């Protein structure tokens, strides 16, 4: 199971890791600072057969590939909406494939969650593994949370794009793969382009063959491309939001640690997956002034989703204090005594798996740290944008 990967670490290792991560500042086993991510290698547009693709790999060899494919699909009409009558008998045909429903938005464009299909493939795990389902649900939840993303897939009232995001982890997961998959998905979406629409109104759509003219799904602001986004959709894109990113943060003692490795996660008191999105910096003047009143640096971040990740630390074996260790012949045979000892006050240097939940303050602090203006998320988004354009 991905969320509670079976970790086999000795109690002595766990006690050491926990002690070193609880220091101020924490000493991480790989020497990173608490907010530092593992260095990664990224590239986009690696698969010419897709609408958008990206690859990210870590130095330890963990590697993920995301391919985005788009298909034109007929939007199911439902009673209660203004029915579209066209010469080619649109209404009759629509009744046939009424498989999915579309949400009625206030905007003329509307989107539906079923227009996006996300699958996650992790080697060594079954297709129907709950952990994989959890990961896929988490990633698509972030993408669909604000409802704006699905609207981008609207072509006209009768047709929409159906977007397939296939996330494949190439190597067996050496650590909880969530940050890797999320960052790769982000890059793939940044590089996704949909063919330019040539038809107008509600007629059957046809598209420009010229791939070079295809606009990006998330219009680029930095590259100042000449293709205006308004050609695809009749109403202009409301805000230059970026695709969401999901970060894994954990708390040990008083420390908040980003992008934990497998060993670090094994001693976590609590771990959260937080999805955020940010408006691109060039748009912050209009939006930033409205909410905050004063001009600040950094992006306007929006919180999209939070999920608690079950830290594997609860599943680790507890250490035995020297005083209670029967291997020394001490208190031999009195298993009752050792039981009591295990429940008693913590002995320094002996690992005890955490029990119970997380304090509200800790959870609040984790979320606050992620959403910090001009903080980690900002720099990650900047770096990803650089990786895409570069």
């Amino acid at each position, binding site marked *: 199971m991905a969320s509670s990967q079976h970790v086999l670490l000795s109690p002595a290792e766990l006690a050491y890791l926990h002690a070193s991560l609880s220091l101020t500042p924490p000493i991480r086993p790989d020497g990173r600072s608490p907010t530092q991510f593992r260095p990664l290698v990224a590239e986009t547009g690696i698969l010419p057969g897709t609408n958008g693709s990206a690859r990210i790999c870590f130095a330890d060899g963990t590697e993920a590939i995301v391919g985005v494919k788009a298909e034109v699909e007929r939007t199911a009409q439902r009673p209660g909406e203004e029915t579209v009558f066209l010469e080619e008998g649109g209404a009759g045909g629509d009744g046939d494939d009424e498989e999915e429903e579309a949400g009625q938005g206030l905007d003329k464009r509307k989107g539906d969650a079923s227009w996006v299909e996300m699958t996650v493939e992790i080697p060594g795990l079954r297709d129907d593994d709950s952990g994989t389902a959890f990961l896929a649900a988490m990633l698509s939840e972030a993408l669909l949370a604000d409802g704006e993303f699905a609207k981008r897939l609207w072509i006209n009232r009768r047709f929409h794009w159906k977007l397939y995001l296939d996330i494949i982890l190439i190597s067996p997961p050496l650590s909880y793969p969530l940050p890797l998959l999320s960052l790769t998905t982000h890059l793939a979406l940044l590089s996704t382009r949909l063919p330019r629409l040539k038809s107008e109104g509600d007629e059957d759509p046809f598209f420009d063959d010229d791939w070079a003219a295809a606009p990006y799904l998330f219009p680029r602001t930095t590259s100042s491309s000449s293709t205006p986004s308004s050609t695809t959709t009749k109403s202009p894109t409301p805000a230059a939001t970026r695709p969401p990113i999901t970060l894994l943060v954990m708390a040990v003692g008083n420390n908040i640690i980003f992008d934990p490795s497998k060993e670090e996660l094994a001693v976590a008191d609590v771990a959260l997956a937080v999805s955020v999105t940010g408006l691109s910096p060039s748009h912050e003047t209009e939006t930033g002034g409205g909410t905050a009143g004063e001009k600040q640096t950094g992006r306007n971040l929006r919180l999209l989703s939070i999920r*608690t990740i079950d830290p594997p630390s609860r599943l680790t074996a507890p250490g035995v204090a020297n005083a209670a260790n029967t291997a020394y012949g001490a208190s031999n045979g009195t298993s009752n005594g050792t039981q009591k000892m295990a429940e008693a006050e913590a002995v320094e240097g002996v690992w005890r798996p955490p*029990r119970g939940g997380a304090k509200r303050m800790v959870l*609040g602090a984790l*979320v606050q740290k992620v959403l910090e203006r001009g903080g980690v998320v900002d720099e990650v988004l900047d770096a990803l944008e650089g990786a895409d354009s570069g």
Partner: protein
Amino acid sequence: MNDRRRINGPAGATLAPFFDDAAPQDLDTRSTRSRPPNATRKLLLKTGVTPSASGSAYLEIETSAKPGLSGLKLSCSVHGPRALPKSAPFSPHIVLSTHVKYAPFATQQRRGYLRDSSERDLGIHLETALRGAIIADRWPKSGVDIIVSIIEGDQDRETSKLQGDEVWDMMNTLSGCITVAAAALADAGIDCVDTVAGGVAALVQDADDGSAPSIAVDPIPSEHKRILAACCVAYLPTRDEVTNLWFRGDLPASDLDLYTSLVGHGIQASKNANRVLIDCLSGTVG
């Protein structure tokens, strides 16, 4: 995934045509919330409903959309603790496995017999919520199965479909699952640090005029115009700890207070559910 072993109903559901002289836009099928924003719905909790299981519980939540009709009906059975199979590796803790399954008729759209991804997702959420509550090292080398069947989902017939907000329903369902599973665990006599219960709070907007959104506890999606964000909290009241937090929506990061108060209201809802849970468990003895 196709279930080939059973004869299933038709693949796609159709809705009966709807004729009315009035323009559909004028029809407001939305029922409005009659409860105060910080009041949860009444719930019925009963333990020991399945005698053959080690522990079991049944939960029913009253729907306020149509008085007299119940919304959510959940039944949970706990099997174990029992010895792990010989092939399983040694475990110093109890091995928890959670299954959440909608009955095929529980929701408007018929569900298959095989668990789909949203049910698996709920299962993981439930596992996270319970794992923090149980004292796992009291039962080494043993396993426990927690099976929650959703007999009736919390959906209003007319409106939920049009809104397409099944996700918000999932949060209500999860909070019910957590409460009912905690009752069944206590019924099975498995050591827990505290009773865990679920609670949901949502940030809702009832009018289109751009008025400030308000926070409602235990929301029914069909009663609100729009749900901006919602969170489901699994909370241990005596330890004041959260074992599972699931938030979804769209909140500006600059307004962290909104998030905090949303979680606070979720905890409030969970405390209400917990009172019912305690009453139910102490009532079983007497």
